[in-house]
């Protein structure tokens, strides 16, 4: 007999037993399967013992009490939760704000601490332009631009003081852009402010040139003089208009690079490089005269200044009392003597460690290979700006 048939017979027998028939009567009906059916029917009988166990009424009552209590607790919690969504949302919002604030502070800190060459430096350069965007009127905007240029110059200074001297082009570009914007804005300002802007730009140009001379790398060695030239050009552009022609002296032009259009008030000063050897040597004239440092005397020239607006002791920002043109071949061997011109950027006897010599200083020695291109003796490489 197969399993299926036995299953059917077993089911039939169990139904008969459930309806009151005895086990032996069922087995007698299926004598050929009795041996297999008997233990199964006996086990079914044993399992019937399960039916003797009933959940007692006491246990039911206890369970009902527990359930009612649990249901009440759940309802209370639900009622309490009714107030929670608002608080929950607020706490999540607060947590989100804290995270955002943290991120903002972290980013701000990273940007503020970034240095040329860093990834965040570009952001810093842009963000630090904020004063220029917020400034009202050309005067304050020009001042803001000058301030920005000064910051970039400080970056440049830091870069060149570092070991690697890795020049970040973004620094130079931002510096030039700010300087040129300041110069452009100066056109609409009063003369006094123009003079001030021009002087500050010229000062920055000198500083850049000095940094270029400190450079040990080819990249910065080429880029910085070019940048200095552009800033100097901006300074020239910002300079107040030329005085009337009657102020022009009768003497010969200071140097071959000066042109009448550049105004007689300008004091051409040749830029010198440390490698120029003798300071008495005439500088090449390929560079336009307006790039020359306004206050610096010629490279060792001591000839009387022929410029029309030169006042020997004049404090004018661009006046150099006796500065001849950069190409003047005067007998004076001094490298960059500024006899008495106390202009804003000419400090004849400044105590600074600048490479330029004062008349009484040791740098007046014609053999001194002072690297200073400008005429500001008080402004050494580390003297700031």
């Amino acid at each position, binding site marked *: 007999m197969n399993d299926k048939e036995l299953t059917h017979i077993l*089911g039939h027998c169990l139904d008969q037993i459930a309806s009151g028939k005895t086990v032996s009567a069922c087995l007698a009906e299926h004598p050929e399967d009795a041996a297999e059916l008997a233990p*199964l029917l006996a086990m079914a009988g044993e*399992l019937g013992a399960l039916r003797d*166990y*009933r959940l007692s009424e006491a246990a*039911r009552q206890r*369970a009902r009490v527990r359930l*009612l209590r*649990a*249901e009440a607790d759940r309802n209370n919690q639900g009622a309490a939760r009714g107030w929670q969504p608002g608080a929950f949302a607020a706490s999540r919002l607060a947590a989100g704000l804290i995270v955002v604030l943290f991120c903002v502070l972290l980013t701000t800190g990273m940007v503020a601490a970034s240095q040329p060459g860093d990834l965040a430096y570009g952001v810093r350069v842009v963000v630090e332009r904020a004063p220029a965007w917020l400034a009202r009127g050309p005067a304050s905007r020009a001042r803001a631009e000058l301030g920005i240029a000064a910051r970039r110059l400080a970056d440049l200074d830091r870069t060149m003081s570092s070991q690697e001297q890795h020049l970040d082009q973004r620094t130079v570009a931002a510096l030039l852009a700010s300087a040129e914007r300041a110069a452009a804005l100066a056109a609409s300002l009063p003369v006094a402010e123009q003079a001030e802007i021009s002087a500050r730009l010229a000062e920055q140009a000198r500083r850049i040139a000095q940094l270029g001379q400190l450079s040990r790398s080819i990249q910065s060695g080429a880029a910085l003089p070019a940048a200095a030239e552009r800033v100097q050009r901006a300074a020239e552009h910002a300079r107040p208009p030329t005085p009337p022609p009657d102020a022009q002296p009768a003497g010969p032009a200071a140097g071959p690079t000066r042109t009448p259009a550049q105004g007689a008030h300008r004091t051409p000063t040749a830029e010198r490089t440390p490698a120029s050897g003798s300071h008495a040597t005439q500088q090449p004239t390929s560079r336009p005269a307006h790039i020359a440092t306004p206050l610096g005397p010629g490279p060792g020239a001591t000839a009387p200044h022929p410029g029309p607006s030169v006042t020997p002791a004049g404090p004018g920002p661009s006046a150099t009392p006796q500065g001849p043109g950069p190409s003047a071949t005067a007998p004076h061997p001094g490298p960059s003597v500024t006899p008495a011109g106390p202009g804003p950027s000419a400090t004849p006897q400044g105590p600074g460690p600048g490479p330029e010599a004062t008349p009484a200083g040791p740098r007046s020695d014609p053999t001194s290979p002072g690297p200073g291109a400008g005429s500001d003796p008080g402004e050494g490489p580390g003297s700031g700006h």
Partner: protein
Amino acid sequence: MFAAIEDAQVLSLIPACQRGDAGAVARLYDLYAGRIYHYVLARTGDPHTAEDLTADVFLRVVQHVQRFKLDASRPASSVSAWLYRIAANLVADYHRARRRRPLVSIDEEAPFAFEAPDPCQQAERREALERLSGGLEKLTEDQRLVVICKYGEGMSNAQAAAWLGKTEGAIEALQHRALRTLCRLLGTRHGRE
């Protein structure tokens, strides 16, 4: 003795339980507690433990009824299947905890003994029940449920088939295999005698 549970009852009770109606929870307990008790008893072999665990099953129902999704095509069966699943989990936890628990002497289990008018008879019944539950633990869940429905609840094949969502043929086959396995594991009283 077996009272069928109508789908309509379940269809009204479960949403009421989900709304937090304490009366509905009590009615659900009354409907299903006996069946769950037999299931737990068959698997634990201890009437007191079965009572406690049955109550625990319905406490879990109260906690989780909000998330329960009623099968509209067979509401009563879906609720019973859910309840048996909860009971199975609790019984499994019980057996795990019991394995970790140190053995206790029979004196510490005295309260059960005092309940019986005839301690010897009570001990014999208890021994038989423990023996059966030990065998039932070895069955598959389907076989076990069929045995409990048929011998605990006294259901016919048709009722068990409807309750468990199976065909009558499947119920018969499961019953046959379950009895054969139990005979093999436990022997029969006659065989032992």
